[in-house]
């Protein structure tokens, strides 16, 4: 199949994906740096390129609430937001997941206030990691486009909501080469959303989201946990199917030159792309370094991450957010927990970096690899958690 090659920013690519998906309902509220996604989509609505019912809401809380109602009626529903917008949706995130509504959010990662900042870190999505949403972090514009399309299918099959993230400005506003799937192929591949219940099915009325006290709340939560436990094979299947059909292949955890890597960086989002360049450079000089990129973050791909991190002796776990728990970043805590029962235990060093959009350069990542190689020699991690690139350390 011949794909159309275009130049698009991350936001434009996500909007294109939404145009091709042609959701039944989009309800949204603008916020930097995600504004463009919905702004462009609104112009597609105005130009008659989609048949979507577009609801410009008065806040993100209302936007996601409108999405919940629409999704419960059986519609295919999408929205987009960032940072404070996601924080304002927080209450409804849990409701969406509890009601098992497969809404997809195009999320552009941006730091949470305070201090107010519009640039990239992962504090917004990671603050929502326990809400029961699937979280997929993308590395570049192409991946953002492809994953947005795949997320619809994954969410509807798993009956769970999904957020697909790009790094604010780094991906959302950077122009890259993107291959688009043919307009007709996307709806063909996705098919219609199939629902068992609908709020608009008057012949089979239902009660949705009733009060659920000591007698049934726990059972409902337990079944939600079970759903999360079955998601990874669904993601795997959808990604394989997408790859076979459209020629671009994705994995749950991306391993790059890991087979003989003595030390490795584990990261999420665009930093994965930067680190790949570093890996190539250092490999040319005979240094055995590798990269692991956690693409799916929720549910946490335990087995795939464990398999990847135990291939190397020393791992730099890169967190673009801090838990403020004095225990380091989110990914670092997940990895430490993962290694508790593992016989093979690589040394871990947590690099909390890039908060508020502070850039991380090729040279800096090369420096991190050099650190790891030194740790491998001594067998000792000098400091478990470092705040990388901050002044005054």
């Amino acid at each position, binding site marked *: 199949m011949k794909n159309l090659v275009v130049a698009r920013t991350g936001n434009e690519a996500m909007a294109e994906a939404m145009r091709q998906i042609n959701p039944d309902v989009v309800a949204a509220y603008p916020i930097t740096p995600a504004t463009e996604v919905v702004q462009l989509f609104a112009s597609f609505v105005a130009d008659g390129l989609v048949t979507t019912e577009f609801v410009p809401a008065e806040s993100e809380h209302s936007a996601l609430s409108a999405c919940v109602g629409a999704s419960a009626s059986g519609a295919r529903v999408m929205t987009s937001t960032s940072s404070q917008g996601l924080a304002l949706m927080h209450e409804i995130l849990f409701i969406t997941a509890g009601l*098992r509504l497969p809404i997809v959010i195009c999320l552009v990662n941006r730091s949470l206030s305070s201090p107010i900042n519009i640039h990239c870190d992962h504090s917004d999505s990671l603050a929502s990691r326990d809400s029961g949403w699937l979280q997929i972090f993308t590395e570049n514009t192409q991946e953002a486009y492809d994953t947005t399309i795949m997320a619809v299918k994954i969410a509807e099959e798993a009956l769970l909501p999904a957020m697909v993230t790009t790094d604010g400005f780094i991906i959302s506003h950077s122009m890259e080469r993107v291959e688009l799937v043919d307009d007709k192929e996307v709806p063909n591949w996705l098919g219609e959303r199939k629902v068992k*219940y609908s709020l608009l099915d008057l012949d089979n009325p239902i*009660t949705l989201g009733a009060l659920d006290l000591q007698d049934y709340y726990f*059972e409902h939560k337990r*079944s939600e946990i079970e759903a999360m436990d079955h998601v990874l094979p669904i993601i795997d299947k959808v990604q394989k199917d997408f790859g076979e059909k459209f020629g671009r292949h994705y994995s749950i955890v991306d391993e790059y030159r890991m087979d003989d890597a003595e030390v490795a960086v584990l990261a999420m989002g665009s930093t994965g792309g930067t680190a790949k360049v570093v890996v190539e450079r250092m490999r040319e000089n005979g240094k055995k370094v590798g990269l692991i990129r956690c693409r799916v973050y929720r549910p946490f791909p335990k087995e795939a991450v464990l398999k990847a991190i135990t291939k190397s002796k020393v791992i730099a776990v890169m967190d673009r957010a801090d838990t403020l728990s004095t225990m380091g970043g989110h990914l670092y805590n997940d990895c430490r927990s993962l290694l508790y029962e593992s016989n093979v235990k690589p040394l871990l060093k947590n690099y909390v970096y890039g908060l508020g959009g502070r850039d991380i350069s090729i040279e800096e990542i090369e420096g991190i690899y050099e650190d790891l190689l030194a740790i491998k020699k001594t067998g000792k991690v000098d400091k478990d958690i470092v705040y990388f690139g901050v002044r005054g350390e």
Partner: protein
Amino acid sequence: MKKEKKGWREMPIGLVLEAGTSKEFETGDWRSDKPIWDAKKCTHCMICWIYCPDTAILVKDGKIQGIDYHYCKGCGICAEECPPKIKAISMVREEK
């Protein structure tokens, strides 16, 4: 007989229940005061029917028939809103 509670595997996905389960809720047993309707005084103006938050005023062919004590919580709004010159509803202490 007490119904056996379901385990999580037997429940429908996504907090879905059959419709209309609130009909089984006997909210009448919350009552501490009970409205007594006087058929002789009532002019069938329907003000109590409009105000009743539990649709517990029974109506047939445009005429009030009485109060549905299965659902009436005894809030007293009907007695309060019944026009002062009519006073067809009075509240009495609930006794069982």
